[in-house]
């Protein structure tokens, strides 16, 4: 990557016997909003703390703007960070909180005033400067935390689940705002979250993390539509899972036999006829079909979600499959339906840990 701003080289961190990061290598470009997505305990926050300098890696190197900062303390790295619980200084006013990084840099009063004005407008905080953190709403606290992270124009902004403590409405608004800040500033944001919706909304590229390892790095659409590992396939979206036997493999496709049904799916490494396979199909990629349906069943229930609905289809042999589709389909509970999906919409991986 030519405009690489952050580079991690085989970063490893252990806590006792737990691997918090296992040989993680990663590059983030100058203008990227990069999301690190993973379930809790997957090591994503540890990775962020290593980038920040709050934790030291056991092995590997951290480079920011081409400079090796592995041994530098956080206060010499020139980065900004926004924390999950905001962590505003309770004894300082909004203005003092935001200006804290400038004060530490020894900026003059005039420069500080200019930067404060600029960042207050950017995050829309004008008028709250003299308040104390306990006098702010959750969304305002979030903005102050962002302003404090951005005010010194860092070369990199780290965000550790910054929206986890906000309600849904506010989160939606802030997602859009954070994207706007990133575009305006042109610096990389590294965004840690366990919420895939947030990651998919905001990121340009993302990585999925699991047990200290990066499972897959790439464009967010690629990760969503073309998962490279079973974990990513199961983690992103809300997929249906089919575990069956591989009947045949050809042309990158595998034919799976599942409870007397047969269907094709994209085949990943390690599949061979006779092996067990797990196939993931995202619920919105399954469609109702009147003829030529792969599977037949009855509609058991419809769960209305607003912009779409989850249709729970009970197959004749008792298995339940979720189909996400437009909410106004005129299927009634109990009605016989057929469902189908394209071969490229399924991802089959070798089944692990079972015969």
């Amino acid at each position, binding site marked *: 990557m030519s405009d690489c701003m952050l580079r991690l080289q085989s970063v490893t961190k252990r806590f006792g016997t737990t691997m918090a990061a296992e040989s993680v290598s990663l590059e983030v470009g100058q203008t990227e909003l990069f999301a690190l997505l993973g379930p809790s305990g997957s090591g994503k926050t540890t990775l962020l703390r290593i980038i*920040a*300098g*709050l934790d030291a890696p056991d092995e590997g190197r951290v480079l920011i703007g081409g400079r090796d900062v592995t041994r530098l*303390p*956080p*206060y010499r*790295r020139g*980065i*900004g*960070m926004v*924390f999950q*619980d905001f*962590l505003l*200084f*309770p*004894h300082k006013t909004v203005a003092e909180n935001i200006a*804290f*990084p400038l004060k*530490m*840099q020894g900026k003059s009063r005039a420069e500080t005033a200019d930067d404060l004005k600029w960042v207050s407008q950017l995050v829309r905080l004008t008028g709250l400067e*003299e*308040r*104390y953190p*306990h*006098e702010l709403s959750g969304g305002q606290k979030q903005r102050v935390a962002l302003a*404090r992270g951005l005010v*010194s124009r860092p070369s990199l902004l780290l965000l550790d689940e910054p929206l986890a403590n906000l309600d849904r409405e506010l989160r939606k608004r802030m997602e859009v705002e954070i994207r706007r800040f990133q575009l305006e500033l042109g610096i990389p944001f590294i965004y840690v979250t366990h919420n895939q919706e947030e990651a998919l909304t905001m990121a340009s590229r993302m990585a999925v993390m699991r047990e200290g390892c990066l499972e897959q790095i790439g464009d967010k659409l690629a990760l969503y539509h073309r998962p490279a590992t079973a974990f990513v396939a199961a983690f992103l979206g809300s997929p249906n899972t089919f575990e069956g036997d591989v009947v045949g493999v050809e042309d990158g496709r595998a034919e799976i036999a599942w409870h007397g049904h047969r269907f094709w799916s994209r085949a990943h490494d390690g599949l061979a006829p006779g092996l067990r396979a797990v196939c993931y199909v995202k619920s919105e990629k399954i469609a109702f079909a009147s003829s030529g349906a792969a599977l037949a069943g009855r509609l058991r229930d419809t769960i209305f979600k607003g912009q779409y609905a989850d249709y729970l289809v009970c197959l004749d042999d008792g298995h339940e499959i979720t189909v996400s589709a437009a909410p106004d389909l005129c299927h009634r509970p109990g009605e016989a339906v057929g469902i189908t999906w394209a071969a490229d919409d399924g991802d089959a991986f070798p089944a692990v840990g079972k015969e």
Partner: protein
Amino acid sequence: MSNTVRFWLMVLPGTVFLVVFLLLPLIAIVVFSFWRTESYTLIQDWNLDNYATIFSHSAYLTFLARALVMATCVSLVCLAYAWPVAYFIVRYGGRYRLILLLSTAAPFLTGEILRVAALQQILGPIGVVNMALTRFGFDPIEALMYSNMATGTGLVYLWLPFMVLAIYLSLLNFDFALLDVAKITGAGPLRAFVEVTLPLNRAGTAIGIVLVFIPTLASATTSQFLGGPDGALYGNILARQFGSTGTWALGSAMGVVLFLASALALVIVWRAVGDLRRSGIVIKGAPKP
């Protein structure tokens, strides 16, 4: 039971305590301080002579000044010593925090006289320190015992646990993650301490200072045992009025002066803390702007 009855039942014990043990004795000494004593008897004869005596004889004020200097020094030494101790216990004590905290107060298990006597065994002319010095061919340090330094050492040793406790309790409520923020926003360890840790524990530290300063100002026992012939403090002179000389009225007046000095110290410390919001303390129910 109506709410009013319940209110008064709750208020009663505290009120009785304050009236019996604080207000009545205080009123008594204020009243006695305007009487006079004759042949070990208090005589109701309203006058200002006792105060005149205190403020016209430089000896009384000198002893008060010495007590003030002693209390200030002891508070500062306790402060400097207690901060690292309390910080270490809270930050790294883990599940042993409480045991570590209680162990700083372990000498309290023995009683005041015994603690002072123990110090004599360490600092005295034939104590551990001077014996060791002599053994290795050095001259013994005489200032260690029967001096103001010895009194100071004894008082620090006596009151340090209170300072540790106050700072410990304050640090328990301190969010150490704020130090991560300070570090990332460009503050080195010292800056982070001055900008974040200290202000957010200012009120707790002030309480610790008060807890050490006020009893030290009034102390008599420690200087009596460790201070030597010239080590008397205000407390010793005050105690003498109620003992050997039997001038209770003058003693009462000295008590009133001591009370006012302590109250003044409280006010000064409180003013130094200033706006509680600057210490990160939120007063519930305070009007929002």
